[in-house]
């Protein structure tokens, strides 16, 4: 059924970084490809993987980690592995990074307890946890995509740019420096609860606090990533066949109604 060179889906540290159902993003990409007859291969990028593997995937998925696990990941990413990952992202490999993983793509993360952890510096942002007793940012969220290139692509694919729904649960607060925000917060806290921005968008990578997980709830983002990855692989325009997303749509409508959000055209 499936044909062509398999699309390699790289999964960052499957056991260390999978806190809030984050593997749902990977499952979503995998199934949406398989359902369309596109061959995929899941590649775990972890402590036992060779450094080359990090640069040789078509899509990268990263999830959240507890503080201690995050430290282990950062230690492992020092050197060649980190450089490979950075090269892949700088080169335009599509990626989705939720929860804790945007923090490690920034310049540094200061945990609630313990030492500052240096990040990869792929994204121009910093994250600070205000301390173990500070309130966490928790709840359902609604986002309006503002990243200009992503919004333009979605407009072309769908004829509109739908709101993104999700759930956030983070202690750390992120401040963007020159990084472009992924979205504007319609409901929720976002990067820091203050400036109304959420996540970051760079190259073809989406970084966001929105888990839930992100992609099954917002399948248009999954399809955008698959399309990007296939086009990079095949060097030609790719149009994905449509899938039945009625349940995802109904779930979105239900959540927007519940939060009293009117989706503007």
């Amino acid at each position: 059924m499936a044909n062509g060179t398999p699309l390699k889906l790289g999964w960052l540290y499957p056991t260390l970084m999978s806190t809030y159902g984050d593997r749902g993003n990977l499952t979503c990409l995998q199934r949406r490809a398989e359902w369309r007859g596109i061959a995929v291969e899941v590649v775990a990028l972890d402590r036992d993987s060779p450094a080359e593997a990090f640069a040789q995937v078509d899509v990268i998925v990263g999830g959240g980690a507890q503080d201690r696990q995050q430290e282990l990941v950062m230690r492992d990413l020092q050197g060649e592995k980190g450089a490979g990952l950075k090269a892949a992202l700088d080169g335009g490999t599509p990626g989705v990074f939720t929860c804790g993983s945007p923090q490690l793509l920034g310049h540094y993360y200061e945990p609630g307890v313990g030492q500052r952890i240096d990040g990869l510096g792929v994204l121009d942002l910093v994250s600070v946890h205000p301390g173990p007793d500070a309130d966490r940012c928790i709840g359902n969220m609604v986002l309006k995509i503002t990243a200009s290139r992503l919004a333009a692509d979605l407009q072309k694919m769908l004829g509109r740019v739908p709101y993104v729904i999700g759930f956030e649960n983070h202690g750390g607060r992120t401040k963007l420096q020159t990084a472009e925000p992924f979205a504007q917060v319609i409901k929720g806290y976002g990067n820091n609860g203050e400036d109304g921005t959420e996540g970051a968008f760079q190259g073809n990578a989406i970084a966001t606090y929105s888990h839930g997980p992100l992609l099954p709830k917002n399948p248009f983002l999954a399809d955008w990533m698959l399309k990007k990855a296939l086009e990079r692989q095949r060097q030609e325009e790719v149009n994905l066949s449509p899938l039945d997303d009625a349940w995802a749509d109904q779930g979105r409508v239900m959540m927007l109604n519940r939060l009293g959000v009117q989706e503007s055209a």
Partner: protein
Amino acid sequence: MVDRIRLGLAIWVARVVTALVRSLGLGAASVLPGSVARRIQPQALRLLARQYGQGVVLVAGTNGKTTTSLLLRSMFEDHGFSVTHNATGANLVNGLTAALLADANWWGRIDRDVAILEVDENVLRLVLPEIRPRVLLALNLFRDQLDRYGEVDTIARRWREAIAPLENATVVLNGDDPTLSEFGQQLEKQWEDLARVQYFGLNEPDRYLEEIPHAVDSIYCPRCGTSLNYRGVYLSHLGDYQCPSCGFAKSKPRLNSADWPQILIGLYNKYNTLAAAATAQLFGVEETTLRGSIREFKAAFGRAEELTVEGTPVRILLSKNPVGTNETLRAIVELSQDRPHGATVLVVLNDRIPDGTDVSWIWDADTEKLAQSAGTIVVSGDRLYDMALRLTYSQPQPGAGARIIPEADLDQAIKQALAAVPAGETLYIVPTYSAMLEVRQILTGRGIL
């Protein structure tokens, strides 16, 4: 003396409030009296808790608190102790106070032997200094309702800080849980008294899981961060492990699990059984009594409850986190493996406070086997589409496997699920906590229960 008078007054007022709440039909008054009493006598919890001649047992952990407490209660009662137990599941500070108040006389005197109090993970550190338990029983620490509690590591650290200063407490810990085992080993060093740190756990390699499930929390050494080597896993991250780097290993359990029978079904309940038995032994309960209590035990409300609805057998299996859900789904798939129509299941997913407001955990549960089986799965609850998507994404092609039917109206969903059960088969209802209450209400409202 003034303390005593004020406690008496607190009790009078709390009793009046209880009577009012009940007579106005406002509820079971499981929390409010505690809140009122603590206003009048802030020391109420301390003054009540210290009256138990045999002391207080605090029961903490993500899964199994109620089942274990009920079993421990039977063991104590079979031994001849009179017992206070916060059976309503109100396990925050006011609920605990209310539970003790209910067994006090008008002068604030309690003449029961022992109290068993289930305690919410995050409240434990607050009540430890007030209650000063004789035993703290810690069952496990799973990823559950993280939105309320923060991270597993943080919880363990807070527990350790709160228990360490208590000079007469004993801890009974799940030695198969690396975080709790490390917790105990730290206390052994700090207290320099091995008798005060006891463990329970499994010692039955023939019951290892074939592979480590996805929903595992801490398979890294809590001491040095290296990946733990597991000789085998019993469930989730509970198993026989050792750290290749610093030598940290599982603590030796007090009882040899292979020699002990268990209550109900499933490895979960083996742990619960051992936890209760190890604790009861510390109070001098004889082994023959313990075994008798285990034999006679009946399931608690909502947990593996069995009913008959319009002639169809129904099992309600409370399900609130990935680990518990995996165990539940595994049991359902096994029980209906050889049936031509597969299993008929009603899953009800709510996201209210008692359920945890974050439903993303369903993606950490291993739903593939059930979704790919031949059965019918009706889905309902506040977040039915989240669950419907989770199940669909478990299938190699949408529709290849179980029939998935989302139905927002719970009443309708129950009707449809009942109608889908082939003759002679069982309906499995898998609800979150608040959903379980709703399901029961509907079944009762129809006069079915």
